[in-house]
C-alpha cells in the first residue's frame, strides 16, 4: 500500500484549478495558429488573432482565459494499491476546488439546487469520475467546463441500423445547431456505445485528449478525420461569424454496447479547451 495524504491532494488540486484556468494548452495554441493559416474569412482570421492575444494576456497577467471558469470536472484514476490518508478523496478534491477558485480569483459558477439556484459561492461540488486501476499511482485529470458549450451538447439513442452514417448525421446536426453559441472554434467530444450514461461520460472523457491526437482504433481515427472535415464545411467559423475553422478537433471514444442499441453522445467544448493532468 502506498499512502497519499489528503493535504498533498488538496494542494495539487488547488494549483491545477488555477493553472488550468490561466493557461491555454500548447495543443490549443498551436491549433489556432494552424487554423489561422487556412482560414479564408477575414473576420475569422481576426478572431483567431484575438484569441491568441487573449491567451497571451491571460498567461502573462495570470488571469483566467475566460470568465466562465467552469464547473470543475475531474477524471480520477486511482491505483488499487493507493491508500488515502487523513480523509476521503472526494472531500479532498472539493477542498482543493474551494481553495483554488478562491485564491485564483476564479468565478464561482455553481448553484446548490438546480431549481432554487442559490450560488454555493465556492464553486463546489466538483463533478468527479473515478476509475479503479492497477498500481500505486493516483492520476488526476482536470477539465473546467464552461456551460456555453456544455449547453449545446446532446445525446441520442440511435438504432443499430443507423450505423456510421447515423452517427455522422447526428454529430453534424448538433454542431450546426450549436452555431455561434459554444464559442467556436470548438472541440467535439463524441462517445459511442455503452449505455446512455456511459456514452455521455465517454464524450466528456474524449475532451481530455490533446488536439491532434487520435483514437488508436483505425476505423475510429478515420471517423474522427472525416467528421472534422465535414464539420469544417458547415461554414460556422470562428465565433459563428463564418469561415473554415468551426472545429479544431473531433475526439471519439467508444465502448461495447447492447445488441439493441447505438448510443451516441456529443459533448461540445469551446476553444477555451482547458485540460491538464498530474500524477501523484
Amino acid at each position: 500500500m502506498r499512502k497519499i495524504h489528503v493535504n498533498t491532494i488538496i494542494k495539487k488540486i488547488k494549483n491545477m484549478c488555477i493553472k488550468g484556468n490561466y493557461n491555454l494548452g500548447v495543443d490549443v495554441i498551436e491549433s489556432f495558429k494552424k487554423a489561422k493559416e487556412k482560414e479564408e474569412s477575414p473576420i475569422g482570421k481576426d478572431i483567431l488573432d484575438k484569441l491568441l492575444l487573449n491567451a497571451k494576456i491571460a498567461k502573462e497577467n495570470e488571469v483566467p482565459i475566460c470568465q466562465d471558469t467552469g464547473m470543475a470536472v475531474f477524471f480520477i484514476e486511482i491505483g488499487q494499491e493507493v491508500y488515502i490518508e487523513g480523509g476521503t478523496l472526494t472531500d479532498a478534491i472539493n477542498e482543493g476546488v474551494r481553495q483554488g477558485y478562491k485564491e485564483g480569483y476564479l468565478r464561482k459558477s455553481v448553484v446548490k439546487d438546480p431549481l432554487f439556484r442559490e450560488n454555493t459561492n465556492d464553486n463546489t461540488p466538483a463533478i468527479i469520475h473515478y476509475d479503479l486501476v492497477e498500481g500505486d499511482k493516483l492520476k488526476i485529470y482536470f477539465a473546467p467546463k464552461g456551460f456555453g458549450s456544455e449547453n449545446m451538447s446532446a445525446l441520442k439513442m440511435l438504432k443499430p441500423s443507423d450505423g456510421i452514417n447515423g452517427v455522422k448525421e447526428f454529430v453534424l446536426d448538433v454542431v450546426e445547431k450549436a452555431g455561434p453559441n459554444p464559442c467556436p472554434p470548438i472541440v467535439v467530444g463524441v462517445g459511442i456505445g455503452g449505455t446512455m450514461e456511459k456514452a455521455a461520460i465517454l464524450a466528456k472523457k474524449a475532451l481530455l485528449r490533446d488536439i491532434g491526437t487520435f483514437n488508436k482504433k483505425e476505423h475510429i481515427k478515420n471517423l474522427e478525420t472525416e467528421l472534422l472535415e465535414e464539420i469544417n464545411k458547415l461554414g460556422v467559423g470562428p465565433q459563428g461569424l463564418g469561415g473554415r475553422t468551426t472545429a479544431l478537433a473531433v475526439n471519439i471514444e467508444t465502448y461495447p454496447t447492447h445488441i439493441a442499441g447505438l448510443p451516441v453522445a456529443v459533448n461540445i467544448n469551446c476553444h477555451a479547451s482547458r485540460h491538464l493532468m498530474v500524477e501523484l
Partner: protein
Amino acid sequence: MKNIEITTPLTESIVEKLNAGDKVYITGTIYTARDAAHKKMIETLHNGEELPFDIKDSIIYYVGPCPPKPGQIIGSCGPTTSYRMDDLTPPLLELGLRGMIGKGKRNQKVIDSMIKNKAVYFAAIGGAGALISDCVKSSEVIAYEELGTEAVRKLCVEKLPVIVVIDSKGNNLYDIENKKYKIK
C-alpha cells in the same frame, strides 16, 4: 465592414447608422445583466417598481465577470450566450433598451422587437475575457449584490470592441457569413 467609434448613450440616430458587420468600439457607460438579473428585473417590472438603472438608450452586456484580483478593476469578462435572455428581452426593448452585447443567436421574437424598437445586438468575442477586461475602466455593483457574479454592474468602458451581428433592420451577420462559407 466599417470601423465605427461610438459613445453612450446609444441613441436611435446612432443605431440607425449601424449595419450588420460593422466593427464598433464602445466608450461610455454600459450595464451588466445575465440570467438571474434578467429574471429579477422582469419581476421588478411586474411589481410596478423601477429598474435599477435608466434603461432608455442604454446598453446591457450579458456577462458574469470573474472577481478582480487585487489591483484589478474587474476580472476576465467575456460575453455569455444570449439566447437564455431571449424570453426576458422584449419587455426591456419596449422600455427603450437600445443595445445588447452577448454572443450567439437570438430568437425571432427578439429580432422583431429590435426592429420595432430600433435596437442593435452586438457580439463580443466569446472566451476572450482577459482581453476584454482591459477595456473596463471602472466597475460598480448597483443592484442585486447577493447574486455575486450575476449582480448588475455599471461599467465604464473605453473602446470596447464588438461587432454588429443583428442591426435595427434585422440583418443578421451570422446568417450572411455562414452562407458564404458553407460547402454543400
